[in-house]
């Protein structure tokens, strides 16, 4: 009897321990999720909900100032497909993204490689180099507007020293395109430089030295060793830069206002115009969704083509 009681006590103790153990197990298991909860809530409120809402609104005839809304399915998208303005704007956005990424990447990579070689005062040079990125895009646009000015801009003054006549940079479609590109490259290149410099710094120098000892030329070492090992940093730089460039708005807003006509109007400006000047939330949301899909597709392509796991 006593034995049975003891056995029961032992069992219940073990049961309690097991429950306690299980409870402890579940508490421990849930801690990471609890810690993630605030960030997840913020993401849901500020990212997921607006994203889903934008997709939802894009299927509606939804005026910003009218309470009556109508479900219209894909009409906003078909309207876009028929809109000449949309295609011009999309064309400009893609051309601009391509041009700025090629230029900023080339200059950024070059600067990163040079900075990587600098042994003394690298921090100072890096800080100086990053200055343009600290300038607000609106301010960049305003400053460059003065620089590109036909009558008293520094650019025309400079080319005038070589006997070239003043060029109406912001007043012609072709020159306005390049004016916007150069102004933006000036601002965004430091971002690429910084990421690539971080990537270069993380490459073990032993590898480079071994390759050199084995007789590799500087170009061969760069192409066969440095560049492949830099792939993750390049992917990050390209993905972010592409997404930033696709969302272009501020610089163009102050520099050309999208002109001449609509020749330098990126999708970002088209969204703003559709939303705040035409009060058409539905169509503005549809353009935003197109932009989102475009960004996602391009990023996936980068990840597929450029990204590869690197093991040292």
């Amino acid at each position, binding site marked *: 009897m006593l034995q049975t009681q003891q056995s029961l006590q032992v069992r219940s103790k073990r049961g309690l321990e097991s429950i306690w153990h299980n409870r402890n197990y579940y508490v421990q298991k849930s801690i990471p999720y609890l810690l993630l909860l605030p960030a997840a809530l913020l993401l849901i409120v500020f990212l997921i909900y607006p994203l889903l809402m934008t997709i939802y609104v894009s299927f509606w005839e939804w005026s*910003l*100032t*009218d309470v009556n809304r109508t479900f219209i399915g894909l009409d906003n998208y078909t309207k876009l497909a028929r809109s000449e*303005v949309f295609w011009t704007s999309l064309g400009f956005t893609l051309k601009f993204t391509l041009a700025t990424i090629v230029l900023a990447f080339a200059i950024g990579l070059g600067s990163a490689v040079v900075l990587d070689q600098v042994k003394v005062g690298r921090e100072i040079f890096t800080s100086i180099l990053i200055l343009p990125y600290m300038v607000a895009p609106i301010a960049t646009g305003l400053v460059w507007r003065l620089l590109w000015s*036909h*009558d008293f801009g520094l650019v025309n003054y400079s080319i005038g020293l070589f006997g070239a006549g*003043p060029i*109406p*940079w*912001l*007043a*012609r*479609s072709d020159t*306005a395109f390049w004016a916007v590109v150069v102004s933006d490259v000036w601002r965004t290149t430091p971002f690429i430089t910084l990421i690539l410099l971080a990537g270069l710094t993380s490459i073990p120098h032993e590898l480079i030295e071994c390759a050199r000892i084995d007789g590799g030329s500087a170009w061969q070492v760069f192409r066969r060793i440095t560049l492949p090992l830099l792939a993750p940093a390049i992917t990050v730089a390209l993905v972010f830069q592409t997404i930033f460039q696709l969302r272009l708005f501020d610089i163009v807003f102050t520099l*050309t*206002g*999208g*002109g*001449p*006509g*609509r*020749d330098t109007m990126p999708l970002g400006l088209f969204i703003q*115009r559709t939303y*705040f*000047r*035409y*009060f058409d939330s539905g169509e503005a949301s549809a353009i935003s969704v197109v932009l989102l899909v475009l960004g996602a597709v391009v990023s996936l392509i980068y990840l597929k083509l450029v990204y590869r796991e690197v093991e040292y």
Partner: protein
Amino acid sequence: MRSKKWIVFVIALLLLSISLSGSALAQDDEQPLAGVQLTVLIHPTLYAATGGDTGIMAEFEEATGATVQVVTAPIGEHVERALVEFIAGSGRYDVIAMQNVEMTDRFFQFLLPLDDYIAEADAGDYDWEDVIPSLSAIANDGTHQYGIPFRWGSQMVYYRTDLLEEAGLEVPETLEEMVEVARALTGDGVSGLIQRGTPLEIAHDWLGFFYGAGGEVLDEEMTACLLNSEEGIYVSQVMRDLYHEGVMPEDFFAIGRDDYITSMQQGRSAMGVFFSPYWGRITDPEDSTVADLIGWGLPPTAPEVPPGRTRSGGWFLVVSKDSSNPEAAFELITTITNRENSMRTAIEFANGPVRASVYQSDEFIERFPPGEDLLISVANSATDPPHASIGEILDVITEEVTAIITDRKSAEQGMADACARIEDIIN
């Protein structure tokens, strides 16, 4: 002895508190809005036209005890801010400055009807009748008055008197004469005619000439586009020709408001049709190198069109229907737009007047010589159609006129395309 002192102390305390409360009451009488906070959303140029930080709003604060917080924003951002607050129903802005093109049902739903307030103010010395009726009608939906006109302007042709005299030419009165004069004055680094060419601004200036030629954007029912008319094609062709002939500056498509004012101030342009309130800036001796050499005239029109017909426009002060201090907000508006301050804003701060008495006063005409001509122009001018899609219509005009001037389309084709697009929008 002690109790005596005590009684004296209590009496003194009583007297002190009575005198303090009396002065507070007096202050309440003098400052009836003490403790009230008003927020005003206004364009920076308009704020400057009220005298800025030391002007009428500061005086209002001093006189009433209210605190006025001023938020300034450029045109595009200005509408965005107002709209977001309207939709949220926040009442963040009590008084908002809005353009005439925004005085439509789309916005009226967010605004406080002002009829009762106007009637009450008019019982005093506000003199609502003095406000030019055609202007106040713009902010009236037929039932209620939603806005008080604050700034109005039309276009005037400004020109260099010395260059015109040298060339032996008269001030152009018709569009054809303007083209000839502009051609004749071009040369020596001086453009014969300067207009704005940036997005939207190009549409505004094109419309000025188009109305001057006798054109209308939409029919009366606002269901048909009338740009594809003789007037539309003629004006587009004229602008195209003047640009290609080098009469208008090479960087025409990058010229905005400030660029064209600067160009006139620096003597780089001989003539231009500009918004009338810019007269003060163009002839400001501190900024202009040719301040004494600027003349003015009615904007050129087609011969059969009433003199001075062009595009006019302006600003209204409105009260948000969600304002928590509508009476104080309206009092601020009446303070800014009463007879005395209307005269002050016109004379001291180069504001475009909205009261007939200002236009007719000797003081105003002496300070602003084009005043009499301006009144004629204001009376004969056209405003953009009050259609809910006016923003989109103006963008279509921007794009098609740009296409014509850059030779991507003929004037006929551009205007036909503009009408096809506009009718697609409005119907």
